[in-house]
């Protein structure tokens, strides 16, 4: 049914239709609307049987989810940013144990300086945790990916994280086609665990593994990710058949035919990029875009296929590895090994800075003219950087950088945008 609905609400609706049996989360912006809505459904009896547990920290939230999942329940949680970091030990643990927990990550920057707005630093920080990481482009996508997430997670016994941009998606009210309960039920069978705490068949889960087998167990986790790599397009295909619209999969090309410059990105910024691509195409600039839905497992082959015809690739990403450069772009460059297609990184939208089509267009045109450097920070205020660097050179006790920069920024920036 078509609804005009907030992204968080849409996710809550769909997650409920997936019939989680234990939902345990700890509030953090911008995830709150999701868990509040699921909580209401549990309390009103609309979602039953389901235990909704209010805990004292994210570490507890993920730990409860681990316990629930190991005991055979379908478990769901959601978090963001500091919350993800606070639970990080349990995040790795859940993946190591092979528990098919589904978690929404309402992507938000990581402090310090504390910042509640959107970027992808949180997701990138757990890139190597063993979780499957799917990125939503729209709220329709976010809703659909959650249904696929439970299917995927349970089939390969791996936890799945659905990443949706905080505020940009979670708080945006837009059109979403919500499925019916029967539709979801017939797509998502009840959870049958591979390992379960069952008194009638006792097993030990999570014991110590020494050097004699650790590498093998780790390798098997990698194998399961590779299995997920096979399963993702299958599930996406089945989903499209079942629900009548495409969602999921590895990558999504848009106007890449004949494109000399192909932009690669993940998440909601793809919408703005597509508008920009349309505008540039109209002016004759041969640019296209390839959106990545599955970041882990990384669809290297699909990416290679999708980018093989390009003269150059520009990766727009909302995170970066401090002291090095792009995170996603490193993976993209790996996928292109041997093709001698140069990859430029554009870091954009950190901490919620709006990514404007105009700025993107300028960068893409630069790329088209072969003028774009290896690493660009979109709309970076050089003047502010220089001022602070000068201040630091000038005196030892220059004070908290964050405060200094903000003071400079406010003295010249208009209050809007």
């Amino acid at each position, binding site marked *: 049914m078509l609804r*005009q609905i*907030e992204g968080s609400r849409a996710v809550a609706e769909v997650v409920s239709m997936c019939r989680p049996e234990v939902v345990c989360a700890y509030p953090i*912006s*911008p995830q709150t609307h999701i868990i509040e809505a699921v909580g209401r459904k549990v309390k009103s009896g609309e979602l039953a049987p389901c235990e909704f547990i209010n805990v004292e920290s994210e570490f507890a939230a993920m730990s409860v989810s681990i316990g629930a999942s190991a005991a055979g329940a379908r478990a769901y949680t959601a978090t963001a940013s500091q919350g993800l970091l606070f639970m990080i030990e349990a995040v790795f643990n859940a993946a190591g144990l092979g528990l098919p927990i589904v978690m929404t990550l309402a992507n938000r920057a990581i402090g310090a300086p504390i910042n*509640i*707005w*959107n970027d992808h630093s949180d997701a990138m920080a757990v890139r190597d945790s063993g979780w499957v990481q799917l990125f939503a482009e729209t709220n329709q996508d976010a809703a659909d990916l959650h249904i696929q997430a439970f299917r995927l997670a349970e089939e390969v016994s791996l936890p799945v994280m659905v990443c949706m*941009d905080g*505020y*940009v998606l979670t*708080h*945006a*009210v*837009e*059109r979403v086609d919500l499925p019916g309960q029967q539709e979801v039920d017939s797509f998502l069978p009840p959870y049958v665990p591979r390992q379960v705490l069952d008194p009638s068949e006792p097993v030990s889960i999570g014991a110590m593994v020494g050097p004699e087998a650790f590498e093998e167990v780790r390798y098997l986790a990698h194998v399961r990710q590779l299995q997920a790599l096979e399963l993702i397009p299958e599930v996406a295909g089945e989903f499209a058949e079942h629900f009548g619209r495409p969602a999921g999969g590895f990558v999504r090309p848009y106007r890449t035919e004949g494109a000399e410059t192909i932009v690669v990105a993940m998440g*909601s*910024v793809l*919408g*703005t990029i*597509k*508008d920009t691509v349309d505008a540039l195409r109209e002016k004759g600039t041969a640019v296209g875009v390839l959106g990545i839905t599955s970041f882990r497992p990384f669809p290297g082959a699909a990416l290679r296929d999708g980018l093989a015809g390009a003269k150059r690739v520009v990766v727009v990403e909302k995170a970066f590895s401090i002291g090095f450069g792009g995170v996603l772009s490193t993976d993209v460059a790996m996928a292109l090994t041997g093709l001698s297609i140069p990859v430029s990184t554009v870091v954009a939208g950190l901490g*919620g800075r*709006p*990514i*404007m*089509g105009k700025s993107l267009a300028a960068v893409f045109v630069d790329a088209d003219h072969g003028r774009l450097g290896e690493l660009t920070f979109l709309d970076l205020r050089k003047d502010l950087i220089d001022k602070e660097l000068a201040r630091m050179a000038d005196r030892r006790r220059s004070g908290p950088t964050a405060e200094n920069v903000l003071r400079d920024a406010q003295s010249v920036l*208009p*209050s*809007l*945008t």
Partner: protein
Amino acid sequence: MFQVRIHGRGGQGVVTAAELLSAAAFAGGLWSQAFPSFGSERTGAPVVAYCRIDDHEIRTREPVVEPDALIVQDVTLIHQVDLFAGLKPEGYVLMNSGRSFEELGLGDLVLRLPRDHMLNVPATELALKHTGRPVPNAVLLGGLAAVSGVVPLDAVRDAITQRFTGSVAEANVAAAQEAYDFVKNEEGVLAHASPD
């Protein structure tokens, strides 16, 4: 694409206004996207919300920087926020005030925009009268429907009754209706005052 920026203060239902507007557009078969300015501000702080309306899918995630219409729920923001930044030359302005634009010190704005695109509605008073609460958001949407025609009043009414129930919904619908009539009446007066 028609883009609306709504200014107000925390507690005045600014975000709800944008959401209601988007729901009204949706009810009319259009595509629409409403989103807040994502602050971490508390009651009384300046807040901005946006709404885009179009007849096809809206993909961009930029904030609205060049609005076609501005709704100002609290005129005390005039001296605090750059309210009119980026407003299109043919844009609409709807302010919650019983005073004229000149009295508010916005004479130069009057010169910039088409005269019948700017209106003041005493929305807080209307809200108080109908709902007993000083929340002007739904009222101003009635006004926007009248001044811009971007969504019909019926759709605003539907959006309100879907969001609220019982007497709250009824009171807000009545308030929006009165704002609509008020604006239509003002427009009539303006049309006579400036026949060019």
